[in-house]
């Protein structure tokens, strides 16, 4: 599954980033790299762009780039 398929409020860990796709490196510089825990907060109308938080910082990602981040969901018992 990729970041693109996440549901609002869902948490996941980034497993693999395809850095060769356009626009991905810039997101990695903001801290979206393998091994980090992220949460999909919200999206704009139409689901694009998406708001993802990493270590307390919200980052805006377009859906097109979100597809380059493979994630594994984290199940929390709340």
């Amino acid at each position, binding site marked *: 599954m990729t970041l693109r398929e996440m549901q609002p409020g869902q948490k996941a860990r980034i497993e693999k980033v395809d*850095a060769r796709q356009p626009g991905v490196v810039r*997101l990695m*510089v*903001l801290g979206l790299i393998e091994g980090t825990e992220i949460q999909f*907060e919200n999206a704009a109308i139409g689901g694009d*762009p998406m708001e993802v938080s990493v270590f307390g910082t919200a*980052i*805006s990602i377009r859906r097109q*780039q979100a597809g380059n981040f493979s994630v594994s969901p984290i199940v929390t018992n709340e």
Partner: protein
Amino acid sequence: MNEKSTIYVPVEKIGIRRRVSATLAIIGNPNSGKSTLFNRLTGLRQTTGNYPGVTVEKHSGTVQLESTAIELVDLPGIYCLGGYSADERIAVDVILGRMADTHAPCGLLMVLDATHLYQGLYLLQQLMEMQVPMIVALTMTDVATASGIDISIEVLQRHLGGIQIFPVATTTGRGLEALKAALEGVADSPAPKVPESWPELSKTADRLIEQISAPMPRIDVIQALLHPRSNLSKTLEQQLGTPPIAEARLALFADEPPQAVEARHRYQWVRDVLGEAQQQAPMLERYEAKVLHWLNQPWPATVLFFAIMALVFQAVFSWATPLMEGIDALAVAMSGWIATHLPDGAISSFLSDGVIAGVGSVLVFLPQILILFLFIIILEDSGYLARAAFLMDRVMRSVGLSGQSVIPMLSSFACAVPAIMATRVIPDKKARIATILAAPFMTCSARLPIYALLIAAFVPDESVGWLNLQGLVLLGLYLLGIIGGLTTAWLLKRTALRGPKPHFALALPEFRWPNLQTVLIKLLERVRIFLKRAGSIIFIVAIIVWALAYFPRAGAIETGMQNAIVQAETALQGEPLAIELLRIKNEAAAAQLSQSYLGQAGRFVEPLFAPLGWDWRVSAAVIAGFPAREVVVAVMGTIYAVGEQAEEASLVSKLRSATWPDGRLVFTLPMVLGLLLFYAWCLQCAATLAVIRRETNSWRWPLFAWTYMTVLGYTGAFLIYQIGSRL
């Protein structure tokens, strides 16, 4: 100090300038509280300019200390030293002392946001590799504590090779004195011991350094390896040849972009440090957090965005009105005073119609521009600008731009000048220029008087269904502006400004109450730029237009007027006399204008504008409006002999009855619609051109914008008139 004075005045209050002993640069992530800290440290002792060759603002200021002063250079807020944007390149050049006209800093003051240590430590680590002495100001500690983040400064310091860390609260000023005291010693402190987050990279750099003959600093070799297309990389290739460097890169980065691999290594280190130095206590979700969360849902957020924009427009157009009317009334009163106290003639006309009208036309827009600037700055400072960009990204993407163009675009509905100045938030250069060229199409407040006049005069006040026809035409003109601007951006992004889609990797800061001092300093700064760059142009142009419309004077018209006045005074008295005198003066003014340089120019270009259905009078008014479109109504008032301050009704009736020599009406519906379209699309504003020049740093774009928009306006008016007249 004055020797006679016996009153003790603190040195700060009288602003004695102490000797500047060192230059430091302040650097940090965007929204890290860097600007607020910079303003706190320097107060109003600031200077602003531009770095040579780029449109990045250069701020510097002096910090007054006990016995000396320190020059502080405020570097742009950045996330990394990657060299993607002009901001990042400038930061590197200034730190390494490669920027012309800027002292090489002896050290750095790094601003680390306690609530966003993750991104902050990434930049900090890159800065440490530059081997420049530095200290760290840890901001937002109060916010961090409130949200359950516990940071151990000792642990952090240990990981950062012993760098001094000073917690400061910029809102209250707590910790500021300790930081100031430490600034003095920064330059003499040793460069930090660099944490090893990527030993292979350092080892490779050291190995390459051993092979080169001319010495190259290690940081340069590292930068050259990380940025294959940079100048540093070329220098290194000249020294070593391409193969060893390509081999080194393959070993380090495989087939991935160097920055991606760099990000992995550095963030690995950052995560390890955070794991030890930072604890996040579980927090109960507070009431405010729940409200904010709900407001961030797609639909509420979008509704809120439009509500905020509506508030901005309400403020720009209605709060400014009393001030604008006051400035107008003041200008009229001063002109009246001059008319009664000075004899008629060139000097009186120069002062009232040239100087006062010129200054008035600069100042009359100042209230609107001030309010617009104020809102843009508050949106920036509160962090909402990024949120607005996020919400509107999808819409702007359809014309090849990103969400960051949305605030400049919307601002240009009030005035293109602040809008174009606000495009600096757009990191992508091509997207920024496309936005700059689209902004002047939007219906600004200076277009409204001419729209109102022509619509009231020639569009029937009828209802179409339950809509008013006049209102519909006005709406149509707004839409024409939007269509013109967006199509232009779309076309440019596909032709002259083609490039990769602007990427939209943007951190969305939390809402923060704007800092009053920062807002006021920025507001003063932008108003100063407006008055200096745009105001001076508007004023000069107003004087030129006045001279064109005033000279040469015809003696015959003057004598004729005097004779007519004498005749009228013998034949009439009371109110009929006053009306007759006004008529005579207006007729004389119209006759003078008719043979002035402006009138001659109108006749000269009449053949050019005849296919659009314009006679020499309309042509002259349009020419007078090229430097600043807001003068058009006043020029028309003079040309049609109703006086420049005429009641709209009298000008309307003159326009309605204006004819060609053969008796045909000049203002037919197709001609008026064409004229309206011309005003919608033509760039009749020298101030906008001056600001485009400043913001793009070349004459190419203002010249292009002017030519393109004039051709577009002319063609549109031509087609409407020619087709409309044949229907």
